[in-house]
């Protein structure tokens, strides 16, 4: 467990030294969501209807933006190889890196989403559901994305390839995440969506680090 926390701490410290990388994804999220009203028109009813979808798709893409960096630096300077050889299990270290990635790339989106939701004329309870859905959904995105990041480690055209691999797998998260907000707006209650999202998260917490570790080992061979 110590190794896990140490990895999280290390990755957070490293990221704080290069703040711009983290901020890029956050700014991307802000800019993309602000572009949609400009492209579609400022009619509040329409914006309210499409807000959950837009915020979710933007969050999806913003997470994707940070994924190539999840393992790349450690791979190129050989740290990853050291991790694989270290006495603590690699799976634990990989899980720590995924958690750090979520804290850096996922959590800021969750915190920003209510503010951006105001642009779309969402009321307080809807904003609450949106935040909750993103809180459950963004870790899921980080977990699934980590598999893709490990598989494309060190490949040419890795970033685009990563998007091709990971985006189809993001679809259930998108559907239930945006669906929760839409269901709440429609007065249907978001409980079902949120519990399904939580179930997928539980499944991913269990399997994704394992698959990621296997993929990292393959990349290191």
């Amino acid at each position: 467990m110590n190794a896990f926390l140490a990895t999280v701490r290390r990755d957070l410290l490293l990221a704080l030294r290069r703040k711009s990388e983290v901020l890029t994804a956050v700014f991307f999220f802000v800019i993309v969501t602000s572009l949609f009203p400009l492209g579609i028109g400022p009619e509040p009813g329409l914006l309210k209807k499409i807000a959950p979808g837009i915020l979710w798709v933007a969050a999806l893409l913003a997470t994707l933006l940070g994924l190539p960096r999840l393992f790349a630096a450690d791979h190129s300077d050989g740290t990853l190889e050291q991790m694989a050889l270290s006495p603590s299990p690699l799976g634990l270290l990989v899980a720590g890196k995924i958690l750090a990635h979520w804290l850096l790339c996922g959590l800021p989106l969750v915190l920003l989403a209510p503010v951006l939701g105001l642009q779309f004329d969402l009321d307080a309870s809807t904003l609450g559901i949106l935040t909750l859905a993103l809180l459950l959904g963004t870790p899921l995105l980080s977990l699934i994305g980590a598999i893709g990041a490990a598989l494309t480690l060190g490949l040419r055209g890795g970033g685009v390839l990563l998007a091709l691999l990971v985006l189809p797998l993001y679809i259930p998260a998108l559907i239930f995440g945006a669906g929760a907000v839409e269901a709440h707006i429609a007065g249907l209650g978001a409980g079902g969506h949120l519990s399904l999202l939580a179930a997928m998260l539980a499944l991913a917490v269990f399997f994704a680090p394992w698959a990621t570790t296997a993929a990292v080992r393959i990349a290191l061979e």
Partner: protein
Amino acid sequence: MRQSIIQWFRFGSPQSFYPLAGRMIPWFWAAAAAFGIAGLWLSFFVAPTDAQQGEGYRIIFVHVPASWMSMFIYLVMAFWAGLGLALNTRVSGMMAQALAPTGALMAALSLWTGALWGKPMWGAWWVWDARLTSELILFFLYLGFMALQAAIDDPRRADKAGAILALVGVVNIPIIYFSVKWWNTLHQGSTINMNKAPSMAHTMLWGMLLMALCFWMYTIAVALVRVRAIILERERHTDWVKHAVE
């Protein structure tokens, strides 16, 4: 028993699988042709005109087999990939790689014929129906698998990375299908019920089954041709390959 297991493992080596595949290919071509002719005859000359959809429903005879095969091939591909990962047999990975383009082709055919069916029946080339959407996502999954394998130069790494992706995909396909179905029922805007498509006459079912068998045999044959090419490409520096080609 032990003997037969060893036999199976023997065919797991490219050297013995290459000639075996060569001997099997003509039989599968013949079977595909036979099933295809029978299926086409049934679908055009025996199956009656549908009461609601007229002659347009005949697209079902290629649409449904293509959809079935596109899903089935992904399962088979994941099976071979997983086997290769677990037992480290080289042919398994090559089989997975050989199947992927055919699977993508089937998914593409399913989408194309689906669009051509949808236009006269529903008045739109594309509707966000749960099945069509899932098929599209399946197509993306095939593309991802092929792109990943193409990007990796070392064939052993390509096999293993592809295997992990295929297995992750197989776990996700039911989740994706379920989520798309859920999404579809939530958005009742475009309710088009595919289930009220023609009530199946027996001859229609038989036509579809025969065509599915044809597609299946076709898939095996073309995958075997491709796996032979992959074997030669990968093993070109070994001695046996130099003697295998005349």
